[in-house]
C-alpha cells in the first residue's frame, strides 16, 4: 500500500506538489495522468526516496520513505523513465548486483534472475555488456531488476515509451499480473489508452494538485450522454493550464476559492471541444463534486 499524507514539495518558489493526499491500496493499479510539469515525476521521486517532501509524509507498506528509507526501498520496484544500467556490466551481472543488494542469497538470486530473464526474453543479450543495448532492451532489463525481489509496490514512470508493440503488451500484462497478485502499482503515463485499459483508478494532476481521482467510468459520468474517450475527458478536465504554480499564484487561487481554478480550466477546454462532440457547450464540470444525479466520484483522498 502507498500513502501520501498532505505531501507538498516546491522547487524554489514553484510549488510542484500541493497537499497531496492519496492512498493506493494493495491490489490496485493506479495511473497518474497530467501535463508535463503537473507534478507527476516529483510525486514519484518522493515515493522512491529521491526527494524529501517539504511537508507531509509518504508511506510505503507502512514505512516512512524519509525516516525508514532503506526499509521502504526494499518494498519498492522502480522503473524510471530513463533506464539506468552500468554500461560495463552485462545484464546478468547487473541483475546479480540488484538481487544481492536486496539481501538475496546467491542461489536465490540465481533463480530469480533466470525467472526474469525468461520472462523478459533477455536470454540472448543477458551476457552482453549493456552498453550495446537498445532503449527497449534497457527498459526490459530495468523491469526485470525491479521485479527480482518480488516487491509489493511497483512504481513505473512512463513504462511504455520506446517499446515495441510486443513489449507494450508484455508490460501491460505484467502490471495486471502484479496487481492480481496483490501488489500496488503506481504508474505515471501520458499514454491515455494504456491507462484506460489497465488502470483500476486514475488520478489527474494539474499544477501540483490532484484535480480528479476515480475510475475512468466515474470520469465519464461527469459528462453523461456524451460517450467521450478518456483522451477527450482528460483534455476537458485539465484545460490549458500547464506547468507549476508559484506560491503567490497559489495564494491568489486560495483566495479566489480552491475549487474555482479547475473549473475555469475545464470550462475553457469544454468550450473548445464542444463543437466536435455536441451541438451546445458543455456544462463546466467540477471533478470534486460531480453533478447530480450521477454518483459522486471518490473524493481526492480515497480511502481503500
Amino acid at each position, binding site marked *: 500500500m502507498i500513502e501520501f499524507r498532505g505531501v507538498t514539495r516546491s522547487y524554489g518558489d514553484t510549488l510542484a506538489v500541493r497537499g497531496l493526499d492519496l492512498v493506493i491500496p494493495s491490489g490496485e493499479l493506479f495511473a497518474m495522468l497530467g501535463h508535463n510539469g503537473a507534478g507527476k515525476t516529483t510525486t514519484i521521486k518522493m515515493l522512491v526516496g*529521491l526527494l524529501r517532501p517539504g511537508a507531509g509524509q509518504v508511506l510505503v*507498506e507502512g514505512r516512512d520513505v524519509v525516516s525508514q528509507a532503506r526499509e521502504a*526501498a*526494499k518494498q519498492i520496484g522502480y522503473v524510471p523513465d530513463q533506464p*539506468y544500467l552500468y554500461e560495463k556490466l552485462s545484464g546478468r551481472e547487473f541483475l546479480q548486483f540488484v538481487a544481492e543488494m*536486496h539481501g538475496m542469497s546467491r542461489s536465490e538470486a540465481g533463480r530469480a534472475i533466470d525467472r526474469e530473464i525468461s520472462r523478459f526474453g533477455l536470454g540472448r543479450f543477458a551476457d552482453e555488456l549493456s552498453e550495446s543495448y537498445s532503449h527497449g532492451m534497457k527498459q526490459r532489463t530495468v523491469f526485470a531488476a525491479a521485479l527480482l525481489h518480488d*516487491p509489493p509496490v511497483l512504481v513505473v514512470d512512463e513504462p511504455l515509451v520506446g517499446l515495441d508493440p510486443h513489449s507494450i503488451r508484455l508490460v501491460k500484462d505484467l502490471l495486471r499480473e502484479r496487481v492480481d497478485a*496483490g501488489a500496488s502499482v503506481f504508474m505515471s503515463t501520458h499514454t491515455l489508452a494504456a491507462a484506460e485499459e489497465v488502470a483500476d483508478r486514475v488520478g489527474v494532476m494539474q499544477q501540483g494538485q490532484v484535480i480528479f481521482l476515480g475510475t475512468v467510468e466515474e470520469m465519464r459520468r461527469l459528462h453523461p450522454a456524451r460517450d467521450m474517450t478518456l483522451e477527450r475527458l482528460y483534455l476537458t478536465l485539465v484545460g490549458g493550464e500547464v506547468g507549476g504554480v508559484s506560491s503567490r499564484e497559489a495564494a491568489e487561487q486560495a483566495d479566489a476559492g480552491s475549487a474555482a481554478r479547475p473549473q475555469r480550466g475545464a470550462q475553457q477546454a469544454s468550450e473548445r471541444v464542444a463543437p466536435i462532440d455536441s451541438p451546445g457547450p458543455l456544462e463546466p464540470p467540477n471533478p470534486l463534486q460531480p453533478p447530480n444525479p450521477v454518483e459522486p466520484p471518490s473524493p481526492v483522498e480515497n480511502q481503500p
Partner: protein
Amino acid sequence: MTPAPAAVRATAAPERRDLDTRTEAALFRRVRLTEARAHLRRLLGQARLRTLLVVTLSLFFWCGLFALFYLGFQFLSTGIAAPGYPFHTKTVEFVFHLFFASLNLMLIFSSGIILYGGLFASPETRYLLTTPARDERVVLHKFQEAVLFSSWGFFLLASPLTIAYGLSVDAPWSYYALILPLILSFVYIPCALGAICCLLLIYKLAHVRLTVLAAIAAVSFGAAVAAVWDAVGATRTQVFDDRFFNDTINRFSFTRGELLPSSWLSDALIDAAQQPPPIPMPLGETPVVRAVMCLLLLFTNSLMARLILKAVAQRTFRTAFSQMECRPRRARRGKTALVDRVAEAVLHPFPPQVRLLLLKDWRLLRRDPVQWSQFLIFFGLLGLYFLNVDQFRVTAGDIDRATWVNLVSFLNLAVVGLILSTFTTRFIYPMLSLEGRRFWVLGLMPVSRETIVWSKFVFAALGSWAPCAALILVSDLMLRVSALVIGVHQLTTVLLCVGLAALAVGLGAIMPDFREASPSKIAAGFGGTLNLVLSAIYIILVVTLTALPCHFKLIADSASINPDWLPTRYLDLWLVLGAGLAVAVGMVATIVPLTRGVRAFSRLEFD
C-alpha cells in the same frame, strides 16, 4: 519473449537478511572490479592506439619530471650545499613543504568538485538512491572515484620528485619502501576533507554553492598570487642572497604548520631519506622511526577522516541530494547579445547559409561555459606567461641573447599550437558527430552537406586564429624579437590554425560517431586520438620548417657565433624554402582531410 509465469505473491516483500555493511561494501567492490575489468578489456581490445598513446605520454612526462627534479637536486647538492649542511636541509624542507602544502589545497578542491559531480549530477547515484543501499555507502563508492581522479596527477608529480630526491641523497632502501604508503595515507586526508566540505556545503547552502565556491577559490588564488608575487618581486640584486633566502623561507612558514598533513608527509620523507645514525641513539629519535611515526600519524588521521566522512554522509547526503534537486532554477533566456551582432557583422561576407551555420555554432559555443572556460583558462595562463616572459630574458644574462630569445619564441609558438590541437580534438573533432545526432534539423534544410563541413572548418579556423595570433604577438613583443621573426611567427600561426582546424573537421567527417552523445567520449575514441597524434606531428613539422632557417639566420647575424659552418649566402634561400615548404605542408594538411571529409560526409547514411 515468453509468456509471464504464474502470478507471484506480492502482498509484502519477503523477509530477507539485511545486508550488513561489510557485505554491502564487498558487493560494491565486486561491481567496481567487474566494471574495471570490462573497461580494461575494451581498452586493450578496441582502443589500443589511445591506450598506447596515454601510457607513452605519461611515461614521457614522468621521465621528464624525474630528470628535472633530479637535476635540480643535483644542482642543490653540488652548487649550493652538500646534503647534511643547513642550506641543503633548509632548501629541501622549503621545497617539500611548499610542494605538498600546495597539492594539499588542490586535492581538497579537486576531490570536492569531482565528488560533487559524482554525487549530485550522476545517473548512477540517482539509481542507487532508489535501492536499499545505505546513503553512506553510495557516498563512499563515489568518493573512491573522486580520490582516484583527483590524485592521479599528484602521483604523477610526487613520485618522480621523491624518487629523484632519494637518489640524489643516496637514501636507504627503507625510504623507497615508505614512499607509497606515505603518499597513499596523505592523499586520503585532503580528499576526505574536500568531500566533507562538499556535502556540508550542499546540505547547508545548496542555493549559493557556486558563490561560496567561487569566493573560496578567489581568496585562495589571491593569497597564492600575493605570496608568489612577494617572492619573485625582489630586484635582481636581491635574488639568491642570504637575506632573500631567509625571507622567502619565513614568508612561506605557514606551509610548515605542525597540524598540516603535508608537513607530516614532508617531515617523514626527509627523515626517511637520512642515513642511519653512525652512533647509537634512542630508538624514538632515529630518522627511520620518526618517519614511521609520521606514517602512523597520517594513517590514523586518514582513518579518522573516513569515519567523519561516513558519519557526515549518513546524516546529510539524502537531504542534500533532495535540496539540490529542488533548488530554484532560473531558465536561461536566449538573447542576441552585442557579441552576436559583432559576429554577424564579421561574418557578413560569407554566403547566407554558411553565415547562419557559423552564427548557430557561435551561439552554442558562447552559451556553453564548459567549452569557452577551458579555452579561457589555458590561453589566459599562456597569456600571463607570455606577459612575464621577458623576466627570463633579464635573468638569463649569461646565455646568448639571440639563441635564447629565438628558442623561447619558437617554443612558445609550438606550445600554442599544441594547446590548440587539444582544443580542436576535444571541441572541433566531435562537432560533426554531434551534428549527425540531430541531423534531422540540418538534413531537412536546403543546405548541402559540403556546406556543413566547410562551415565547421571556417568556424574552427577563424575562431582559433584570432586568439592564437594575439598570443603569439604578445610573446614576440615581450621578447622584443625582430620584425622578420614576428612575420614568420604570424605566418606559422595561420598555417597551424588552418591545418589543425582542417584535420579536426576532416577526420571528424571521415570517422563520425553517432552513437555517442558525449563530445569528450567522442574525442577520446580512435579518431580523436589519431587527430591528436597527426596534429602533434603537423605542429612539429611546420614549426621546425619555419623555425630552423629563421633561427640559423638570426644566430648567424649574431657576433658571438662563429659563422664558419653557416654559409650566410644561403640563409635567405633556406628561410624562403622553409617557409614555402611549411606552406606546402599546411596546404596538404588542409586540403586532403577536408576534401576526403566532404566526400565521406556526403556519402554517409544516417540511422
